[in-house]
Every structure is written in C-alpha cells, then in structure tokens.
C-alpha cells in the first residue's frame, strides 16, 4: 500500500473505506435483484474496481464533474449518490435519479456532478471534454474526470477529443479503467501498441497506476486535479484493475475467455477493500470491530433502500412523453 498523503485524516480514510464498501454492497444487492428476477434488464457490476472510482472521486469536489460508463454504479456511488434513488432507478421507479427513464446504463446524478452513465462505449468522451470546455470558458476551476474502459480506447472519438483537449489545455482527466477485458475479449487482442503511449503522442501527460490501491489512485488524482485547476491539463491515467463478475450479470460461464484461477487470484490477492482494510488496521486508523460495524450499517442501509425501491411506484404512464423536450 502506497504512502498516504499527510493531508488525510482519519475521517478521509474511513470515507474511502466506506465508499468502497458501499459500492461492493450496492453491487451485491443489484446482482441479487437480478438473480431473483426483480430487476428489469441486465446490468454490469463494478465489484473489484472500487478503488478506482473511490480513489478518484475522493480527490474531487462536489462541483467537479464526472462522466461514467455502462459499468457505472461505482462511479455514481463514489461521486456521492444515495442508495435509495439508485435502486429506484435500477428498478424503473418514479423516485429514481432519472424517474426510471434511464435505468442502470443511464444513471445520472447531476446534483453531485455525475453527468451520467453511457451505454455507448466511449460515448461520454466528448461530453467530459465539453464539460471541461465549459469550466475553462466560464472561468471556473472545476475539473472533469472521464471514466472509460480499456475497450473504449478503440473508439476514434477518444483521439479526436484528446487532440482538442491538448490543444486547448482543458481541465479534463481521462481515466482508463483497464480491467483486462472488453466483453469477452482480452485487451491485448484489441489494443495495438501502448495505451499510455497513445495519449502521450497527443502531448498529454499519462500515468499508469495500480487500480487496486486506493491510496495510490487517490494520491495521483489529487496531484493531477490540482494541476488541472491551474490550467496544466489535460491528463491521462491508466488504472490497472479487474472486474470480478462477468461482463454483465448474465455472463456466468466465463471459462472460454478467462480462467477461474485468474479470477481467484485477483479476488484473493489484490482485492482493493481487503488490502485497504488491512492497512487501516495495521496503521491503527480503525479496528476490525469498527470496520465490521461500518459494514453492517452499509448493509442495513442497502437492504432498506432495496426494500423501499421494491415497494416504490412506477412512473405514471402519462410520463411517457414528458421530458422529450425541455421547456
């Protein structure tokens, strides 16, 4: 575990732990909703990648913006969303963040600066860059983080907007969550050359970081966010991570594209929550008991939110043609 910044106090560390645990718990519940056929459609689990979203979002202010992906629950929680509105959204209920109209793949939480998940791989890269454009044009010092997967690096849009971000020194950080796979294909098979090198070729400073180490992610992000605020952006981060579940909840038989051994190895030896927990205990920041009780609270919170969402009402059919156009 890399050294923590001196500026962090106990509450900062516990917050990181809490947020990672909240994501894991959220996903366990979402998966359960799927398995028990209570959730409409499919969804993509973030479990295993928690240190990425949390390490980054804990370095951001509420007014900073993020754009998210099809695998977006983690980003949403990390940027400050509530369980209740999230579960309501996943179940298509009126009290969801998007009144049930978006669902898992479009969950957005504008009040906390989450400009939304996106079901087009790479589709949010322009949006994130545009958000940074706004900040620069209006003279705000907000930073935007663009989350995307290794698979999304194949989309040409990324190179178009990185070029402009570099030419115009925009305050945007491109955060590539390299979890080794896009759907059922290994990254090596779809990415020639070097992902970092591609960003660098556009004159963008690029860093690779262990995405299972929340402190390392957080420390790097803090530095880059700070420099973005001073007009030194854009930056590029490649975060090496892993998804525990299948591509989506229905992707159960995975052996044809990755081994159980590989999955076990990441879960047992590189889990971001387990690692951080040991560190917290070893450093005397929290006791096992304190962390257990924190976990229990989160679980109770999640259960209550799930219960609430299951009972909550669907939007009225009259809503179907509301929000096509803004007034």
């Amino acid at each position, binding site marked *: 575990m890399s050294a923590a910044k001196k500026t962090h106090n106990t509450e900062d560390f516990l917050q990181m732990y809490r947020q990672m645990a909240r994501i894991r718990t959220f996903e366990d519940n979402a998966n359960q909703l799927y398995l028990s056929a209570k959730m*409409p459609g499919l969804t993509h689990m973030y479990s295993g990648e928690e240190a990425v979203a949390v390490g980054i979002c804990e370095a951001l202010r509420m007014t900073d913006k993020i754009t998210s992906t099809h695998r977006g629950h983690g980003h949403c929680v990390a940027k400050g969303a509530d369980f209740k509105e999230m579960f309501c959204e996943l179940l*298509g*209920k009126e009290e969801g963040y998007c009144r049930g109209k978006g669902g898992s*793949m479009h969950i957005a939480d504008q009040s906390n600066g989450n400009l939304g998940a996106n*079901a087009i791989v790479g589709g949010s890269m322009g949006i994130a860059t545009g958000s940074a454009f706004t900040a620069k044009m209006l003279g705000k010092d907000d930073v935007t983080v663009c989350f995307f997967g290794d698979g999304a690096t194949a989309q*040409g849009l990324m190179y178009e907007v990185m070029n402009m971000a570099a030419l115009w020194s925009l305050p945007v950080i491109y955060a590539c969550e390299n979890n080794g796979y896009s759907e*059922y294909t290994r990254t090596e098979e779809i990415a020639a050359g070097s992902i970092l090198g591609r960003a660098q070729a556009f004159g963008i400073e690029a860093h690779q970081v262990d995405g299972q180490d929340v402190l390392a992610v957080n420390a790097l992000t803090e530095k880059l966010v700070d420099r973005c605020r001073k007009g030194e952006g854009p930056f590029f981060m490649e975060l090496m991570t892993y998804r525990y579940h299948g591509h989506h909840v229905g992707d159960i038989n995975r052996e044809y594209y990755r081994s159980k051994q590989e999955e076990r190895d990441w879960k047992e030896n590189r889990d971001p929550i387990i690692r951080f927990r040991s560190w917290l205990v070893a450093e005397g920041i929290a006791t096992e008991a304190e962390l257990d009780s924190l976990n229990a609270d989160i679980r109770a919170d999640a259960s209550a939110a799930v219960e609430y969402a299951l009972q909550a009402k669907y939007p009225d059919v009259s809503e179907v043609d509301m929000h096509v156009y803004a007034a």
Partner: protein
Amino acid sequence: MRKITLSQAVNEALAEEMRRDPTVFIIGEDVAEAGTPFKVLSGLVEEFGTQRVVDTPIAEPGFMGIAVGAAMTGTRPVVDLMFGDFLFLVMDQLCNQAAKTHYMSGGKLNVPLVLRTNMGATRRSAAQHSQSLHALVAHVPGLKIAMPSSAYEAKGLMKTAIRDNNPVVIFEDKLMYNDKAGVPEEEYLIPFGQANVLQEGVDITLIGTSSMVQVCQAAAEVLAKEGISAEVIDPRTIVPLDEETLLKSAKKTSRVIIVDEGHQSYGVTGEIASRINEKAFYHLDAPVLRLGAMDVPVPFSPALEDITVPTPERVADQARRLVRGELIHAA
C-alpha cells in the same frame, strides 16, 4: 418441416453462404469465440477460423470502413453491428461511402456487403439499446433494407442479401432470436422486393414489418372473431418496396393500417401510407392509418416502455374503428 429459431436460421444462412463462397467473411465485435452476445454466430469460428470470423476492437466506424474497402476489392463482408443503435456510429461509412460508391464511380465499383444488425424495444435496455432505426437507412439511396419477420424469412433474406451486389442492411428483431418457425432443410432464397401476403382478407389490410407482422397477425385473429376479415402483408424489404402487392391489397380492402416499430414520425409508416394514398386514393374508404413507435426515446421503466410500441390490441382497436367508419376527423 423442422422448426428452428431465428438465431439458428441466421447462423445456417451464414454458414451455407460461407461454404459456398470463400470470399464471404464476418467482421464485428465478439463474433468469434463468443459468437456475439446473442450467441447467433456460435460455432462459425470453429468451422471457418478467425480469418473469416473476425473479432474487432470496439470501433464501429473503423470496421464498417474496412468492410467497405474489402467489399470494393473482391470480398463479401457481413458486418455484425451488435445493436441497431450503433448505426449512428457507422452512418458516414455506410451512407456517404458504401451507399454512393457504385453511383459515384459511374458503375465501376461495387460494394457487396451486408450489415447485420437488430432492432426492437421492450427488452429493458433503455434509450441507446432499443431503437429501430431502419427508416434512417431506408432514406438513403443505394442501400437495400431487409426486415425478416420469422426464422424462415431471416434465412432466406440473409442468403439473398449476401449474394446481392449492393450494400444491404438487415434488421433482426432481438426479441425474436428464440422464436421458432418451420425452415426447410433444402436451400431457398427469398427475393428482395416481393411482399408476402400471410393471410388474405377483404375488409382491411394490415401491413407490418419485422415483429409487427406477428402483431398484425394477432390483431387479425381477434378481428376474425368479430367478423372482420383482415389481410396481413409483410413487405419483407422496405427498399426495394413491393408497391404493387400493397396497392393491390389496398384497392381490394379499401382500408389500410401500417404497423412498424420505428418512431412514427418521419419514418416508414409515413412513406408506405403516402404511396398508398397517392396511388390507391380513389379506392380508399378511409384514411390510411399508421401505428409506429411513440416519438419518444425508449424509456427504461417497464411501466413506460411497454406502451411505446404497437400492440395487437391497439392495432385491432384502430382496425375496428376504421371498419366502422369512426375515424372521420371533425372538419
């Protein structure tokens, strides 16, 4: 006759054509070992190898462009576009390049490619994974557009598409992949531009595309019980469109409803309705009616999504009112 699923029918069509013609290949995301997320292509890579069942990075404009160039130089690519919604990403290569190359070159260059993709809502996949965008490509001269309505149709139309010397876009309804239909063991092709009259009738014509054919059939059954005899027609390809068969039916029944899962406005229903109005006007007893999907992005919530698409009930309801002469708009 044996029954197989639409998914198997497409798989068979591809395998047969790939065996017949070594220049046919498949290109797209996770088409090889994974056989696509819908598993439609399972087994093909084992038979034809990764040189002819080509997994690509997630770069739709890129592999679409590669297919155009490959088609221009002597191969017959079948492009696999995972969701019809991603058409928006490949429009330039499809519509500015593939569709126009033959014309712009004065007939010297051909682009014999097939773009296989899908359509259809009510799968709880929300606004970017549920669209039925066939009207968009139907507007672009140079493309042919096929819309299979069953496993039988899917196989026959796919084989014709692969042999066609033009870019063909073929839309499969993703909710029909597991629907079975009788499909002969023997080879057959379904020619483009020949509508299929699934059921004859005298009181009203129901024209449906893709899965809306089933919706029309279900409506026709309900209507039959009420003594209303509906003719059900599947145009099969909307470009080229078999105007003749549609007009003949319209003139016979004098009442027509067109049902399509694309957004209603500026879409397929308007075109077909206009042609019938224009060319069978003096035979019509009532205005041609249209039932498309609502003009809203597809909502995620099941409570909302289900009401955005035409249903047998709504078709039957409109048909009833047409037949009863209830649809005279107030002056």
